[in-house]
């Protein structure tokens, strides 16, 4: 397989993308042709998550664009990385203690790397699909359809992230099957917190009928209570 890219920036980006893919450096010791030659430090992984997340967020905020609403691009560009990183920080202590109690402390840095790599894959996928979202926006769809588009893109990125996460965890699971339970714990905790975090950080796609604001007027409500009420009132 030849890599003819010669522009330095592209070479670096290419290496980073491969590093968070399913053939990333943690996966196996054998260096196959497809495997990444670059091991990203945790700092690099974090930078990648922030950069790619912000890029998608900025595109997400361009719905019904007019110069007076350009702040929405900045808001969403901030919110996507905040959503991912803050949720991770909140769940980290529990993940650490649970791994330790399960006797898996020695694998913790690899587990964390797997988690961050999957988040990297998530944001990179989002960024890769950003042009599609912009195209759909450009066709003049309404706010509901814009939300649906973003929801679909998030779903696709989640699937990619799951694939990467399990691929990265395969070696750990082969070593000790308890890692499956830990991965389950992580996904439940992360999902539970992320839903509320996303609810608080709304709107990501500004409704043209509403004025521009960083958060909704009622950010401090509970997503689960809101959904339960909605379901039971109908």
């Amino acid at each position, binding site marked *: 397989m030849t890599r003819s890219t010669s522009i330095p920036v592209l070479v670096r980006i290419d290496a980073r993308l491969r590093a968070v893919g399913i053939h990333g450096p943690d996966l196996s010791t054998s260096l196959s042709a497809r495997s990444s030659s670059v091991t990203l430090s945790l700092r690099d992984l974090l930078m990648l998550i922030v950069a790619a997340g912000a890029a998608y967020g900025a595109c997400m905020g361009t719905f019904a664009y007019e110069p007076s609403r350009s702040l929405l691009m900045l808001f969403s560009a901030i919110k996507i990385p905040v959503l991912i990183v803050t949720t991770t920080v909140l769940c980290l202590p*529990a993940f650490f203690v649970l791994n330790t109690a399960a006797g898996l*402390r020695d694998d913790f840095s690899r587990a964390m790397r797997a988690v961050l790599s999957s988040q990297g894959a998530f944001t990179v996928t989002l960024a890769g699909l950003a042009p599609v979202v912009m195209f759909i926006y450009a066709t003049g769809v309404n706010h509901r359809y814009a939300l649906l588009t973003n929801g679909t893109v998030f779903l696709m990125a989640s699937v990619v992230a799951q694939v990467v996460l399990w691929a990265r965890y395969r070696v750990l699971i082969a070593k000790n099957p308890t890692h499956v339970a830990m991965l389950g714990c992580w996904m439940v905790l992360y999902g539970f917190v992320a839903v509320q975090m996303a609810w608080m950080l709304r709107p990501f796609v500004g409704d043209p009928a509403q004025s521009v604001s960083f958060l909704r007027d009622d950010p401090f409500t509970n997503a689960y209570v809101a959904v339960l009420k909605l379901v039971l009132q109908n």
Partner: protein
Amino acid sequence: MSAPSMPSWLANLDDLLRGKRTARDQIASGLVLPWTVYVPLVFLLGGIYGACAGAFSLVRTMGGPHAADGIKQLLASTVKLPALFLLTLVVTFPSLYVFNALVGARLGFRATLELLLASLVVTLAVAASLGPILVFFTLSTESYAFMVMLNVALLGIAGVVGLVFLLKTLRKIADAAAMLGEVEGASGDAIFRVWVIIYGLVGVQMAWILRPFIGHPLAPFGLIRDRQGSFFAGVLENLQRLVN
């Protein structure tokens, strides 16, 4: 591999969580679970979780006329949560000891007590590590009923981890004895299983009489509420309130 700079209580906690204290070779040469370290750890870790639970009252009364109540609730919860676990142990330990003695169990009085304290430390370490999630929901939730259910769920998770630790360690103790060819002395596994249920039932009722831990935003501060009802009725009532 604990760093030399780690204070001894933290190194102790770390060893316990990593399972070094209850490793097979440790058990064979005699379990060392220092209660003088574990009791303060129960207060520290339980206090952290208690403070996170009590923060709801602080946040909800902040800036209002009852702001002082919020601070009182936070302090009360910080003390009450470790007290809940230790008092439950005090109430239920005699029965376990008697059962164990009757079947001629291997573990003596002190060893049993220290093993249970170690399980509490594991439970509360997990609970404390879930504290940031609890605080996040505290900041973003107005519903008191939701917070009650979230606390029940988080303490439930912590309890399961502590329970798994306890049963695993008992299994290892039984295995170690079997390897030494010891035939006398029951493992007491079945008794522990029954006892865990007793502990759980007493624990939830203890939690019920020590209420409030979270502090209803509209109720004035009180160290302990009037004695009435039960934990299970309370949970059901809460589920209904959640949707109203």
